[in-house]
């Protein structure tokens, strides 16, 4: 991990072109440290942006709560049988729309399936959609945005216009058009669609932060030492440009889960027999007046999940943003 950027910023100001770099760095460094806390001369001076952020996060109750919830969510997404013994597809029509009963705390849905079991099993679908879509968007966005920002010129101009094109298409409309023909019962068409329309958001951010990072002195130094482009990008630029991408991707993960539910409500998202919160909410919506529990439990689970990801992203942003220190 390279040194934090404030050291070389401090170095530029007093020295200019020549001068003794060592002295200047020390001066710049100590000046920077004067206002806040003890003089950074001890071993703790070497703390990176990440270890700093981690120190902040460990003390942040919002972060701890949302991280614990997400951990719980991922656990039940992998092993839903840990807390739900039933089968989400085993239904008894005679019990359709019935309310809470012993052994069935959330009641039954329109087909007489146990709402509790379906809500627990729905976590797997939502987490899969969210995680896969975010990974795809982040990989594609970082690769395209990062390369465009690094090389500049014609590829950059083309990519920027392409991003504008994708931004101009309303997401839900694109979903209706593209997904209305797909007759698949897996999550992959929905994930693919989210990656297709989602990557410009990340690529714009990655591009911007790569452009900021590539002008830093340590990158110029690496270039002067003969580092290859790949080494400069991966070893020096990427670790310093990735923070904003992580923040936006975390928040986006929540919105993808919510988008899946919206698409399912419009009838173009996931399809039964897939068990998902979106499908359950939308199939419960006509009966909302007589049997609101059928809608409220999956909707509540969905809302809490999205909330957890948004709060996690917010906490990470606060920890990574040096302006707020």
């Amino acid at each position, binding site marked *: 991990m390279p040194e934090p950027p404030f050291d070389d910023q401090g170095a530029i100001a007093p020295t200019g072109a020549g001068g003794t770099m060592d002295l200047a760095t020390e001066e710049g460094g100590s000046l920077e440290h004067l206002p806040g806390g003890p003089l950074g001369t001890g071993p703790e001076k070497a703390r990176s942006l990440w270890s700093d952020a981690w120190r902040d996060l460990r003390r942040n109750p919002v972060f701890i709560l949302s991280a614990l919830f997400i951990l719980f969510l991922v656990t039940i997404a992998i092993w839903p049988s840990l807390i739900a013994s039933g089968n989400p597809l085993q239904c008894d029509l005679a019990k359709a729309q019935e309310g809470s009963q012993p052994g069935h705390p959330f009641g039954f849905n329109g087909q007489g399936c146990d709402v509790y079991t379906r809500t627990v099993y729905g976590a797997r679908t939502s987490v899969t959609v969210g995680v896969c879509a975010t990974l795809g968007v982040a990989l594609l966005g970082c690769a395209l945005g990062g390369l465009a920002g690094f090389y500049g010129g014609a590829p950059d101009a083309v990519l920027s216009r*392409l991003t504008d*094109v994708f931004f101009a298409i*309303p997401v839900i409309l694109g979903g*209706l058009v593209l997904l*209305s023909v797909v007759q698949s019962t897996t999550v992959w068409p929905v994930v693919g669609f989210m990656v297709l329309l989602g990557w410009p958001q990340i690529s714009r951010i990655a591009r911007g932060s790569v452009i900021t990072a590539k002008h830093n002195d340590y990158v110029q130094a690496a270039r002067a030492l003969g580092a290859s482009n790949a080494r400069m990008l991966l070893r020096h630029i990427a670790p310093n440009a990735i923070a904003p991408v992580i923040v936006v991707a975390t928040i986006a993960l929540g919105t993808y889960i919510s988008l899946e539910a*919206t698409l399912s409500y419009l009838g173009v998202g996931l399809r039964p027999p897939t068990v998902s919160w979106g499908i359950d909410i939308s199939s419960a919506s006509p009966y909302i007046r007589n049997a609101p529990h059928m809608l409220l439990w999956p909707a509540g689970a969905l809302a809490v999940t999205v909330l957890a990801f*948004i709060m996690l992203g917010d906490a990470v942003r606060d920890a990574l943003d040096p302006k707020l220190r």
Partner: protein
Amino acid sequence: MGRYVIRRLLQMIPVFFGATLLIFLMVNVMGDPVQGLCGQRACDPATAAQLRKEFGLDKPVWQQYLTYMGNVFTGDFGTAFNGQPVIELMADAFPVTIRLTLVAIFFEIVIGITLGVITGLRRGRPVDTSVLLLTLVVISVPTFVTGLLLQLLLGVEWGIIKPAVSPAAPLDELIVPGLVLASVSLAYVTRLTRTSIAENARSDYVRTAKAKGLPRRRVITRHLLRNSLIPVVTFIGTDIGALMGGAIVTERIFNIHGVGYQLYQGILRQSTQTVVGFVTVLVLVFLLANLLVDLLYAVLDPRIRYA
């Protein structure tokens, strides 16, 4: 300034054609438009070939796209599945959705900015914390759930509003749907205004204004607000396109016969012309709104001057 406007307009052209081409390709992937005309049954092959020739569907896709765009610029958006010109559908649908969007933007501006200013000036107080929590809840509940719940409570249980909006969609029936449409953006506007106000409240010019002895109200409205609203204006401007596109969900819940309704019908009945026509206009609205935002910058922020 004039040169900047021209440059921006020129930049819009490739984006407009790119986006419409993308939609055109998507719709062509979507399905066979001739099949949509035959209804549920399979088309008679001879009739299908006849229709294909009549609509120019036997030509390659790029040629169809060029013909279509040529027609669009003369005001001809083609015909919908029932033989009605698409432009007539637009004349019915767009006023409704524009009214709905205006109601939503009104709520964003009035409620969002007011809440943002109040919380930004009282950071860390109970008001601030509770409003922030509320915005988080609004953001994390999907719009269609908010809509369904409000419809149930206000429309069905308490009878304050009509659960479904009549086809004419007068303004007073659009208040609650507008609020639902605005809800998520409203929360974002609140948070954005709050951050911006809190950041600027510590700035030198605000301290100077206070030191001059200006009344608090004047410091806030003339000095603080004017500088803090620049990011908010950007957000609201870019949101216009998203609101009109996102209205599809709200319009479905409250049975409003606007753009979203027509698009939904178009997609269900595989009416290529309807879908491409409406999306083309939506893309154009989005691009123009973005241009407007960029130009507003210069008015709001004298530091930005376009050569």
